[in-house]
């Protein structure tokens, strides 16, 4: 079992947050690794303003997708409440952050609750962790107003560093030169070098496996 598959619904109720300067949130298209300065909701966050809440939601999803624990901690420590489905207790603040961190830093053979397969399974500490989830975010203005919901899916893969920490694996961005490689052809064993394909025509790289 090499894949941490955590399919969960994550309704997040984000109530009013302080809103100083707003740095770029890390997303898949942003070549950024590691924590940002701290998640910020929308600039001049207004809990009664739909656009403001929507922007905060998008930043939260971007931070989650990037595995940006520090950014998420900012949310979790600022009045956010995460309501889980299936009657699980709501979590807030540091408890929520600790729970998130624990999922990304499994102890050897620790028990993890995985909703994907229905039953808890034994996980092993691995050199990498994949995390994917279906999410539903519900953001409710602090002072009333209609809750807004959005759903989606994201996947993040983390690679364990020598110090034991987990870092998001990011591919090259659009506009970057493709990383060169030379690998052996499946049947003949003949070496195929990407550099030899470059120069005349576009190249399509298809990555995949059987399962």
């Amino acid at each position, binding site marked *: *079992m*090499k*894949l941490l598959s955590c399919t969960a619904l994550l309704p997040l109720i984000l109530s009013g947050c302080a809103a100083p300067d707003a740095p770029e949130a890390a997303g*898949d298209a942003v070549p950024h690794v590691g924590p940002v300065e701290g998640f910020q909701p929308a600039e001049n966050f207004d809990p009664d303003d739909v656009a403001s809440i929507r922007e905060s939601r998008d930043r939260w999803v971007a931070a989650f997708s990037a595995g940006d624990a520090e950014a998420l901690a900012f949310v979790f420590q600022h009045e956010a409440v995460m309501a889980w489905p299936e009657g699980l207790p709501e979590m807030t603040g540091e408890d929520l952050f600790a729970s998130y961190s624990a999922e990304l830093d499994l102890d050897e053979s620790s028990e993890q609750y995985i909703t994907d397969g229905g039953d808890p399974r034994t996980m092993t500490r691995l050199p990498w962790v*994949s995390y*994917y989830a279906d999410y539903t975010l519900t953001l409710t203005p602090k002072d009333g107003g209609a809750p807004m919901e959005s759903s989606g*899916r*994201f*996947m993040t*893969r983390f*690679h364990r560093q020598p110090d034991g920490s987990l870092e998001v*694996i*990011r*591919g*090259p*961005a*659009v*506009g*970057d*030169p*493709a*990383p*060169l*490689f030379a*690998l*052996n*052809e*499946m*049947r003949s064993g003949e070496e*195929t070098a*990407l*550099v030899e*394909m*470059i*120069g*005349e*025509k*576009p*190249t*399509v*790289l*298809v*990555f*995949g*496996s*059987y*399962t």
Partner: protein
Amino acid sequence: MNSVVDTEDWYQAYKDRANFLMVYIEEAHPGNTVEGMEVHAATTIEEKQALAELCTSGNLSLPTVLDKLDNAVEIAYAAFPDRIYVLDAEGVIRYKTAPGPFGWDVAESAAALERLLTE
């Protein structure tokens, strides 16, 4: 939609105008049973070769190479569990899908290649 059929159709339609290369990386779900056979993660390059042949046996005729056991190319491209990149003739990345299975999108990738070819 069948991702194998879509990919093969795309390859057949464009193989004269673009290079195609499939990189077999590693099993996304080792332990799963597919067509009555339990699939395990490869621990040797020979096992990887056997799995790659299974992967392409369903009418997928793209030229296929095997990533090394350390999955270095997969990691360099953040390609797990599957992903498509479209490079221009200079080797610059012009389009990439999000990681699969959610991001896998042959139609969008084909459209990106078509745009590239008509620039």
